[in-house]
């Protein structure tokens, strides 16, 4: 699947109630106010639903920042243009 990062940024924006334009490589659990252990679950479920993938146990705990999310999605065959 070929997608633009716009789509990924929109997922984070909708889940955490932030502006999509504010999402960048530095976005992480430490910089987003609403990103906690509970909303992290929502993020996992949202990413899996949106990109049609299933994260392993390890991946689901490791995706705590934007570059890692992108990397893990790429491991699942999601291609970013």
């Amino acid at each position, binding site marked *: 699947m070929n997608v633009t990062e716009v789509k990924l940024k929109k997922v984070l924006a*909708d889940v955490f109630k932030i502006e999509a334009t504010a999402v960048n490589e530095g976005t992480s659990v430490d910089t987003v106010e609403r990103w906690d*252990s*509970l*909303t992290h*679950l*929502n993020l996992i479920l*949202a990413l899996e*639903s*949106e990109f049609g993938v299933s994260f392993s146990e390890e991946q*689901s705990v490791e995706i705590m920042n934007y570059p890692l999310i992108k990397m893990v999605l790429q491991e699942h065959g999601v291609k970013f243009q």
Partner: protein
Amino acid sequence: MINDDVLNAIARVKAEPTYVAYSALANLAETAREQGYEPYRIAVLRNFTIEPLIPVIKGEAVRLGLAPDVYVADFDAIAESVLNSSSQLYTHKPHLILLAQWVETVSPLLMTKFLSLSKERVEDEVARIVDTMESWLRAIRSNCDAPVLANNFPLPNIVTLGILDYQSESHQLHTVLMLNNALLKMSKNFSDVYWVDTLSLFARLGYATAVDERNWQAARAPISKHALLPLGLEYAKFIRALRGKTCKCLVLDCDNTLWGGVVGEDGLDGIKLGNTHPGSSFVAFQQECLNLYNRGVILALCSKNNEADVFEVFKKHPDSVLKAHHFAAWQINWDDKATNLKRIAEELNIGIDSLVFVDDSAFECDWVRKQLPQVEVVNLSKETYHYRKELMLSGYFDSLTFSNEDKKRSQMYVSDNQRKQLLKTASSFEDYLKGLGLKAEIGRPDKGDVPRVSQLTQKTNQFNVTTRRYTEGDIERFMASDNSEVFFLKLSDRISELGLIGVAIVQYKNGVADVDSLMMSCRALGRGAEETLMSLIYKRAKQRGCKKLVGTYLKSKNNAQVADFYSKQDFKLVEESPEGTKWERTIESQMAKDYPNWIAVKETNV
């Protein structure tokens, strides 16, 4: 008045219901409140991680015109919340309490150590769980009246004894079903406790699809990404029903919706409708429409055809389940469908937001969604065998009561069409009313009327002076109290019985009769029924020695037509505020208010 962000987010979930779209909408709950959406407080008691489901429930609430404010109690702290009368559960003042339990947390014994249990021990464990929940419900009811929405338990996917389980006397799967039944039975002792049927939902989805074992182990969050939307929608169906947002009228397209093909081109013999595929899908779909009709849903048609072609199908096609006499209104022409839907709502005298529009055409559905965002739209898929499911699983017509009036309602709207014919031939309106042979029965309801009375408070939006929604428990309390009375009005004429269509609730205090609620089903308006009910209120207040009648009008989105109701009833305006108006009328001892002379009134139980 409605903020574009909120409306756009609602349009987004309607057009593409995804978890992300719901998350975005849920995040606008506060904005919705600022925009005047009705505040709706939900308190969630739970023994599993329900948080991922909350955005769907909140999003659905916003879609229903509410501004949800959700309080989620601590994990597995249900007893602490319900037993402490000053807990946040109660200080939140919830309109709805979710009691969300997961069977693995409720009883690890039954789920994982079943083999070690004797038959008696199993029964004891079931009794313990039932007793626990009973004590919770008792505690909740002694502190607040909010409806409680619990859930039953799905069948587990792993049974300890494997193939032997089902052969055993008290097998594990049976135990879960037994537990569900015992809980349901116990809950009947409490007012306004309802059950989300997780058992059926998970059977429909499949346990392995519905449960995320990874998130269960990692975070005690069992609801999978596949179950979030379906389960959230199940909760929302209850909110819709409890808030009086149940839709009333099913508006159907014809070609490729009620039959395959285009009747104007293929002809009566050419359309696909019958016992063989694909005609069989349309027969099945029509049957569901008829089932809805029998549940009291009004049927209407909105299609681009020649009217004569369409009615030829209903009159002559041997396999058409739906007949001409099932439809209360139709707009069969080439005007745009949004305009036609407005005409249908006007003709039936119901709100545009009580229509559900069903069409196979994505173009028509999209147009209606954009023009009339209040209308619920079902865009049927390309696969005709899905039609039935797509209509029924929406839950737009779901209600928490089913009364005799419901069974007759759709027929009544058809009768209205006949009345309109009568009106055309009468010389004056009063002659017409006299010719109708109206009979009213008014008085205080008995226990059997309570579900219908409650339902009217829940469903009546237009002719409703205060739009206060009451559960059956509330109505029973009004009836039992010395300081309040509930009145009903049943109406019939020579064409049909309209049934119980009017309700009033009056509170008495210090010689003042205060009309708490007064409502009338719209199909009964303009015949003097509302005056009749008012006359009874006047009469009772006088009997009880009251000196003054007080009436309140609270503005809502839909009740502008009763803004001057009290003025028409000779009340004087005493107060005006942004919320509405307050009215008074003195009760003079020598003057009784008469019932209209064209209605034969019978008083019951007064």
